[in-house]
Each structure stands twice: as C-alpha cells, then as structure tokens.
C-alpha cells in the first residue's frame, strides 16, 4: 500500500542526505515502528508520505498513486486519508475539543448530522467524552494527544502516522497512547510510528525498522528496540 522507491532527500545541496536510498514497502493493516536516534531521518521519511517534504531522488507511492505527481486537489484528498499525530499535538488552540475533531470532518465535506454522530463516538474510543467542550489549554498533555488521535482517526483514514507521539508524555500516558494505537490498528488501520522510546517499541512487539544517519539498517518482522 505504501511504497518508498529508492528515496533520497537532501535538504540543502552540499549537506549529507537526511534520508538516503530507502526502499521500503508497508502492507495494509501493518503496525510499523520506525526507530533511530534524532536526525536518523524518521520524520523526513514520514513527511514525504503526506507531501510536506518532496524526495530529491526516487518516488513515494500511496496505493497506485505517486505522491509527488498528485494535483493540489488530490493531495487534499490524500491528506484526508492519512491521519497524523505529532509530539507537539498540533491542536487548533482557538477551537474546543469538539471543534478540533469536527474540523477534520468539515474539511472533508461531511454533513452536520454525520459530524454530530461521529465526534462523540471517536471521543469515546479515546476516553475523553467528558472533555468535549474544553479548549486544548485546559487539558493535560496526555489528554491533548488523545484529542489529536481522535481527530486523526475520525475520517477513518487508511493510514495513521504517529511521529514521536509519546515524546512529551509521562510513561503512563505514553502507555495509554500506545494502547489506543494498537486498538486502532486492530480495527484495520495501518499505523506508522516513529519513536526512540525503547519501552514503547517493545510493548508494541510488531515490525521494527531501524534507521541510522538516513539509512535503513534493520527491518525485523517481530522486532525489539535495538540500537
């Protein structure tokens, strides 16, 4: 479903590549953890999936489409099929929890009735029903990340990209977030997770890809964190 074809990314000519000659494919329904030190190229790899970064060499495919060749309009549709969560949550600070999640549905053109039904449902899934009218700054880090997850999955995306989702969370909240990601994966969504948290990777216990200085150095079907 996702295919990186000999992908290299050089941000500034003359600097070493952030990502170098990566070939990688991910099947539907997989849970892939990408590990590596800071600067190993994990985030760059993910950003190429939702077209925030373009590869310098090579191509990235989503299904049968090459991402770099999508029109603006198709790119918007692609982004609605990919849910994203980040270390810094990236919620809309002037919108409350309900509106943050509803926003993702509104941009996809869903009806008001659908939205009124789906938002409470997905908040129930991440266990935040009682915070529905709160604003992001009134929530803890763990709660904010769960709102971000709710927003990422409410459009029922094919893929969920989680870039260091536990980076700003304490171990208990980190554990909760990983459990939610596993649940989402069990429901059929492909999950791509980057992290440098050993216990997170070990608790997932699925495919682990290890990156080092832009290169893919290991790809284990049932991996553990090893660096």
């Amino acid at each position, binding site marked *: 479903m996702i295919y990186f074809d000999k992908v290299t990314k050089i941000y500034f000519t003359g600097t070493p590549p952030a990502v170098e000659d990566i070939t990688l494919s991910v099947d539907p329904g997989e849970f892939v953890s990408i590990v590596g030190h800071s600067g190993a190229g994990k985030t760059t790899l993910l950003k190429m999936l939702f077209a925030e970064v373009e590869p310098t060499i090579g191509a990235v495919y989503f299904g049968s489409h090459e991402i770099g060749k999508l029109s603006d309009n198709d790119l918007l549709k692609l982004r609605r099929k990919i849910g994203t969560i980040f270390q810094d949550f990236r919620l809309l600070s*002037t919108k409350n929890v309900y509106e943050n999640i509803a*926003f993702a549905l509104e941009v996809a053109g869903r009806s008001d009735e659908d939205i009124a039904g789906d938002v409470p449902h997905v908040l129930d899934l991440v266990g935040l029903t009682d915070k529905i009218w709160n604003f992001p700054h009134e929530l803890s880090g763990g709660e904010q990340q769960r709102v971000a997850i709710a927003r990422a999955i409410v459009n029922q995306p094919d893929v969920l990209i989680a870039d260091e989702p536990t980076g700003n969370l304490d171990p208990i909240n980190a554990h909760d977030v990983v459990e939610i990601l596993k649940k989402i994966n069990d429901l059929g969504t492909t999950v791509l997770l980057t992290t440098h948290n050993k216990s997170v990777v070990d608790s997932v216990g699925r495919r682990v890809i290890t990156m080092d200085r832009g290169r893919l150095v290991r790809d284990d079907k049932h991996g553990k964190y090893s660096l």
Partner: protein
Amino acid sequence: MHTMSHWTTIKRVARYGFVGFIRNGFVSLAGILIMTITLFVVAGLMISSAALSSVLKQLTDKVDVTIYFVTDATEAQIMDMKKTIEALPQVATITYVTREEALAQFRARHKNDQLTMQALEELGGNPLGASLEVRAKETSQYEAIAKYLEAQQASRTEAGAKIEKVNFYQNKTAIDRLTNIIQTSKQLGIAISLILGFASVLIAFNTIRLAIYTSRDEIGVMNLVGASRWFVRGPFVIAGILYGVISGVIVLLLLYPLTLWLGPGSERFLGSFNAFSYYIDSFLPLFAAVMGSGVALGALSSYLAVRRYLRT
C-alpha cells in the same frame, strides 16, 4: 468521498470567521483600532480636500477684472464692449453693473459713514460710472484679458474711448500670488493625501499580517488535515472584512459629533465650507469611501497574509 455542497462550505467558513473573530478578541481589537485610525485618515483626507476645493473656489470667485466706464458712456456702447469681451475664449461670465446699481451698492456700503454720505449728497446726481465685471475661467487667464482690454482702450474705438480704467493692474500682485497659492496647495494636498494614505494602509496591512502570523501554526495544522485553500483562508478574510466594517461604522458614527463640533468653527474660518453640512450632504460618498476602503483593506490584507502560510 462525500461531495461537499458549496453552501455548506460557505456556511462553515462564515461561522469560523465570526467565531474566530470573537475568540481572538484581543487581536481583533487591535485590528479594529488600527483600521479605525486608517479609515479616519481616509475620511479626514476626503473632508479636508473638500474644504480646500471650497476655499479655492471661493477665492477664485473673488478675483475679477472690472472695467469702469466714464459716466457719459451710453448703454449701447457698454453692451457693444460686453459683446466683444464675451467673444474671448477665456471669459467665463460678465456682469453688467449699471450706474444706478453702482450708486445703490455705494450707498449700502457707506450707510454708516456720515461724512461720505454727506459728500455724496452735496455732489448731487450720480457721480459713479457703469462697470463690467469680467470673470475668467482660470485665474491665470486674467492677464490675457487685461492685455486685450488695454489694447481696446488704446485703440480709441467708440466703446474703447469710454473706458475710464481697468482695475486689473491694481489687483495684479494679489491675483498672481493667489494663482500660485492655488497651484501649490493643490499639489501639496495631493502629495499629503498620497503619503498619509499610503502610510496608514501599510500600518493596517502589517497589523493584520501580524495577527495572522500568530495563527501560522494553526494554518499548518489545517493544511495537514486536508483543508482546502479557501477553507483555511476564508475565515481570516471574513475576520478582515469584519475589522473593516466595524471600524467603518465607528468612524462614520464618530464623524457626526466631530463635524457637528467643528462645523461653526470651520465656517467662520473657511467662509463657505461647513464640515457638518459636508458630512450630511456627502454622507453617501463618505460612507462608500470609508466602508469600501475598510472592507477592501481588511479582505486583501488577510488574503495576502494567509497565502504565505498555505502549503497546498
């Protein structure tokens, strides 16, 4: 994929525009304040340019060339002269003042001056001659008209011989100076308007840009969840339009007491121009200019500012 009706999108964009405007209260307040000042400058420039034109017109109207005829000039001779002058391309109007009218005007002017009135009585009859007051289309044309009249007087034609004097040369310095002042103040007025207008537009534009700069991360997030360009931009443009409309209303409302207060003073100082009457009489163009520039400035600034942070 569901198809989104345009109406739904417009409704959502409008709602987010209003909600964002209210929730970003402090930023909105700053935007409105700056915009209010800008629109005040716009309105002020309009009013002062109207005042300037009115004063200039009034001054221009005061300038004329008067031809005084000797007392025994016949009406036919004066009419003859009038016809000749009317044929000149520079002449706008000619007013004929008869001897009787000249006397009546003289009496009216000196009615409190016992000595002069006495002298007039002693003279008996009417010592004043008829005159023609000639107005040119432009102040700079008086010289040409005066030259022509001088030539007429020198030519000793039947009518020309009856000219007692042409008062242009007494007024020449005043007319020249006025011509200069009019030219300069017109140019100065345009220059000042341009500079002030440009500066205030720039300040308003920058304030809105700063307001949107604080939202750049949000714009990034909206892009990320697949919001189309207009879905991201629309609410900001609507907030910008709201700044313009609200500031416009504030300015137009404040102008009422302000011009009411300035009205009598402006009339005393400038003669025919009353700021309050201008406000009342020209409310529609004033409204159109203030609201139009407010809405355009708000919408355009927001549009351009958001464009910087869009990534689709």
